[in-house]
């Protein structure tokens, strides 16, 4: 009998994390996107500065428009929309999507870069608190008996396999546009077809590969 949470407690925990994040920030939540932005912080920082600059200019234009309307009741053309992020296809950032339904006002800009770095660091701290308080924390040079029996017990091969697996995870999640939190929780929670497809495929593939590792290899 493991000392992990029962399924219903885990379900409530994961759901609360996702719902709370969505309602407080009006953004979808995804760890692979946070990794992507933090890793490319120079480019992301440059984009943030450009967007901040544009926001200031737009605020100025809107203030001038409002001031003009006080003296002239004629209709005035609205301020222009911000330009699309020039690296959108390359970075995988999705902005300016129209809201469907009558929901809270959508935030069109991605979460600030520093908040994404804070998310990753907080996961580390949260995991450490859980490990220490449950008595599971133990510094070790292997990945546990399960990994040793199912994958490999050789330390060098283990590092190579973990790195290769990590490359597949990193490349795959960004190519698919999300991971188990972004597509799996946030996206499936919104019943987005792309997230339902991605989740079915990555879960299905993980099942097949795990069965291969367990039964065949």
């Amino acid at each position, binding site marked *: 009998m493991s000392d992990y949470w029962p399924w219903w407690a885990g379900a409530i925990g994961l759901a609360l994390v996702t719902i709370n994040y969505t309602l407080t920030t009006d953004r979808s*939540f995804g760890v692979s996107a946070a990794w992507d932005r933090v890793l490319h912080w120079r480019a992301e920082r440059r984009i943030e500065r450009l967007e901040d600059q544009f926001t200031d200019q737009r605020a100025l234009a809107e203030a001038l428009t409002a001031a003009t309307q006080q003296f002239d009741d004629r209709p005035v053309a609205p301020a222009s929309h911000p330009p699309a992020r020039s690296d959108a296809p390359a970075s995988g950032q*999705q902005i300016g999507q129209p809201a*469907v339904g009558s929901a809270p006002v959508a935030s069109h800009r991605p979460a600030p870069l520093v908040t994404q770095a804070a998310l990753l660091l907080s996961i580390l701290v*949260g*995991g450490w608190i859980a490990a220490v308080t449950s008595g599971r924390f133990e510094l070790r040079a292997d990945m546990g008996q399960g990994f040793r029996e199912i994958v490999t017990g050789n330390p060098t091969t283990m590092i190579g396999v973990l790195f290769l697996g990590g490359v597949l995870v*990193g490349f795959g999640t960004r190519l698919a546009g999300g991971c188990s939190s972004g597509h799996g929780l946030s996206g499936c929670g919104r019943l987005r077809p792309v997230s339902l*497809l991605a989740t079915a495929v990555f879960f299905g593939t*993980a099942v097949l590969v795990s069965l291969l590792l367990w039964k065949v290899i």
Partner: protein
Amino acid sequence: MRTRGAVLIANIITGLALGYTVSNIGFGDYAELNRMFTFQDLRMFFAFAGAVGIIVVVFAFLRVRRTPGRIHAGVVPGAVMFGSGWAISGGCPAIPIVQVSSGYLPAFATIGGVMAGIWLCRWGNARFFHLDRGSCGL
């Protein structure tokens, strides 16, 4: 409550809660993960599926906006790669962090691989694929 400071606080709370929850469910434990993927123990699968079910109901009740996701050419191959990597290394992008925080030092190799893969994907997409992949993590 959408200021930069509010989003920062929300991210910190979310990260702490996610790390705590994922660790206590057992996603950082390779043996538990393999038991889920091989249907020997469906506890973690029910935790994930149950979470999705709760989120669907709550989002529908609160009428949370549904962003229109587009199925593009990178979804299926990307998901296949991700699923393979998850089964082999035991880590989706958040889990290696939790594994390190639980004391599994080799998980640093997984984190290094994740970083290399993300970098390679952006580099490769800019030069070869040119896919507008979208992202659900904003």
